[in-house]
């Protein structure tokens, strides 16, 4: 008895709720942008500058007491959060202390860190400082630029590659789907105020990589079917292609999600944000390759044939949706 995620033969009409799915995607994207603008992102020190100190103690973490202890130091914005993780032992109490970048200092001076450590040690003699990280405003500004550049460069590279391998409509569709995935991920990070740092950017790029992987497999099949079924309408051929690859799409998403879930639960809190972003991206990316990318291609493909008949030299898809 084999495990089958989808029946042997599926014939789902993926365009049946085209308006609803595309509408939902657009609404979700707008919502993500609104969330981003209204709530903002919880930037880590990589992008904002400042210092984070990770503490660990056998005593329970009292965030209020920590805050009071640090109050007299006049460090400006201090954020204290307790960290929970299933992998922690019973007397392992972890907190993160984040201090804003200090006026007139490139990276937070060792005196500041020492005074914070001293104040916390006075409160809890068993406290240990597992990591201290400090980034100056100069570097954080550059990191934001590099991160933005990395995402833009990835999208551009994919746009060009898909264009070369397929047709320009495909590359626009693929990049629109990627854009959708990236925006929704930023939206969820904004909604839950998850720490957004360099690792999140790496996660975003991974999402782009995963989602394009999915999209390309469907496109590949679509190209093959378009050559095979020259007379069938584009929409039917697309449905056929998605149905044929559906089993693979869900299998791969399944194995990837299984692996990611293990990492999400057991991988520790240090990379939880990173893994969460990728997991979310795999779900969104699978959805977008099935629903977003080919809707755009359908839209563009139809439109192009209407406006410039016969002008598409060497385009094997030009006549298929007539």
């Amino acid at each position, binding site marked *: 008895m084999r495990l089958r995620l989808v029946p042997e033969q599926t014939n789902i009409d993926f365009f049946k709720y085209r308006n609803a799915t595309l509408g939902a995607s657009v609404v979700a994207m707008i919502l993500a942008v609104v969330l981003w603008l209204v709530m903002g992102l919880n930037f880590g020190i990589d992008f904002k500058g400042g210092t984070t100190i990770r503490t660990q103690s056998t005593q329970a973490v009292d965030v209020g007491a920590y805050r009071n202890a640090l109050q007299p130091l006049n460090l400006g914005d201090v954020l204290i959060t307790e960290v929970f993780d299933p992998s922690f032992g019973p007397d392992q109490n972890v907190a993160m202390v984040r201090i804003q970048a200090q006026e007139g200092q490139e990276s937070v001076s060792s005196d500041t860190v020492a005074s914070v450590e001293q104040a916390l040690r006075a409160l809890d003699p068993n406290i240990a400082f*597992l*990591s201290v*990280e*400090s980034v100056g405003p100069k570097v954080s500004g550059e990191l934001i630029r590099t991160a933005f550049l990395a995402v833009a460069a990835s999208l551009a590279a994919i746009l060009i590659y898909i264009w070369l391998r397929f047709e320009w409509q495909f590359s626009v569709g693929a990049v629109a789907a990627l854009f959708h995935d990236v925006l929704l991920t930023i939206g969820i990070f904004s909604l839950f105020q998850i720490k957004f740092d360099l690792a999140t950017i790496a996660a975003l790029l991974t999402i782009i990589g995963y989602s394009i992987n999915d999209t390309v497999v469907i496109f590949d099949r679509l190209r093959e079917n378009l050559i095979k079924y020259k007379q069938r309408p584009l929409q039917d051929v697309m449905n056929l292609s998605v149905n044929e690859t559906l089993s693979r799409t869900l299998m791969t998403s399944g194995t990837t999600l299984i692996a990611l879930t293990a990492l999400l639960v057991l991988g520790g809190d240090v990379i939880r944000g990173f893994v969460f972003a990728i997991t979310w991206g795999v779900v969104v990316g699978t959805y977008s390759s099935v629903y977003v990318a080919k809707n755009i291609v359908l839209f563009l493909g139809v439109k192009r044939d209407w406006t410039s008949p016969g002008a598409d030299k060497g385009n094997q898809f030009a006549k298929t949706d007539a």
Partner: protein
Amino acid sequence: MLHIPLWKRVVIWGLVALGLLYAMPNAFYSRVETHNDALVAIERQGSTPEREAQAAVWPSFLPSSLVNLGLDLRGGAHLMAEVQVADVYKDRMDGYWPEIRDALRAARDQVGTIRRLDGPPGELRIGISNPDGMARALEIVRGLARPVTSLTGVGATDIEVQGQNGQLVVTLSEAERAATDDRTIRQSLEIIRRRVDEVGTREPTIQRQGQDRILIQVPGIGSAEELKQLIGTTAKLTFNGVEGRTTDAQADPGARNLLLPSMDEQGVYYIVQQTPVVSGEDLTDAQPSFDQNGRPAVNFRFDPTGARKFGDYTAANIGSPFAIVLDNEVISAPVIRDHIAGGSGIITGNFTVEQSTQLAVLLRAGALPARMTFLEERTIGPELGQDSIDAGRIASLIAGLAVLVFMWASYGLFGLFANVALLLNVAMLFGLLSMIGATLTLPGIAGIVLTIGMAVDANVLIFERIREEMKTARGPARAIELGYDRALSAIVDANITTFIIATILFTLGSGPVRGFAVTLGLGIITSVFTAIYVTRIIIVTWFERRRPKTIEV
């Protein structure tokens, strides 16, 4: 139909074996590490029976390169330093002054008397009393300019001279600045490397980043603060004549003198001559030691030039004090009792043993050419690193196991074939990582887990395709062949796009993110290889033995 030539089989299994061979040391991590450390120790400090025994724990004919663990896994310190390259301009202009002065003095009848005026750092301003001699003065100073010795600066000279309101303004030219900056960074790199090496830690990373930055990562060091003290100190040592001693911080030291604070005595200042008698550059050796009262001190020895200068000075100034100055602070100002001829001496002060050891290290390694500011500091404790390794290991095991079971449940026998390939894939990934000496970081572990999840993709594509081809093709052999052929273009396209992303991540990312990009990128290579070649060879071999009439995928 289904036929793989022998040479191809040999090459494929050969590559797999090579990957496994290189991955093997990682399974015996601590043992191989002991072996490697012992080899380094033998090379540096000579052989001892103990070290030989440690080296023998791993046979030398086996590969011994390991995957390096990143800072976030091993614990240690990370610093991003910006070298203040402009510091050097001032020294360069100061160095030019005597030469320019002598040249202008020789033409005194035309330019009149000359004097140096105050100007911004990196600029030499000279006043001349005869404004009509300006053209001549410019000509003389320009004549002193030397060609720039760098590839990009061909044809340019090192200084630029302008006349402004009866003043000569000398600055370094653009090309010379670029050449100087480059030299400054390279010197700084070299000196930092020497200082870090003196501490003897394992595999430090010291890299130039961009124009004027240096990235320093030292695993195993207690904190970034410790590292900063080691490399952040300029360690410019000079011996200067003392003019006086005062408690007034605002005292006017007078021309060509400096007012410097004392290191140990609060509120005490020394007026010292600006031009040092000897400097740290003339040192050949410095060692921590103890003075006659048993207090920590530093012994030093001058090279012949330094020894002669120091000897001459002490002979001429018996009875007067001289100052030992480190980074603009007076360590001590002993009185010269005797002519010191041998070229060696001792620095005493209120040192602890650690301080004297560190000072000796700094003096041996030499002074940094310019100050450094630190833009980024990170300290990761070893416990946190160990926690991350443990969590990562468990998560990878569970993830791998779950994927194996899932594949077996979905594709039966073919799933098992894919599973063998998956295990070989992970082993080969580790082999590749060790071979190129890559660094494994926490996001890198996530990259491996992600690879485990995605590696099966290529096999899934092929198996799904075989299932489809089974419906139309004549016989299982044909279906398998078509499955592999027709799935190839999707596999290639899908993986090339992901590989592009990994490349971009590697180029633009840093530290842990780069570690992720490396595992992701190499994971794509190994997974495509195992999916296309290794599973194929397994399936074909199985098919040849069994010759099944039908197959169930």
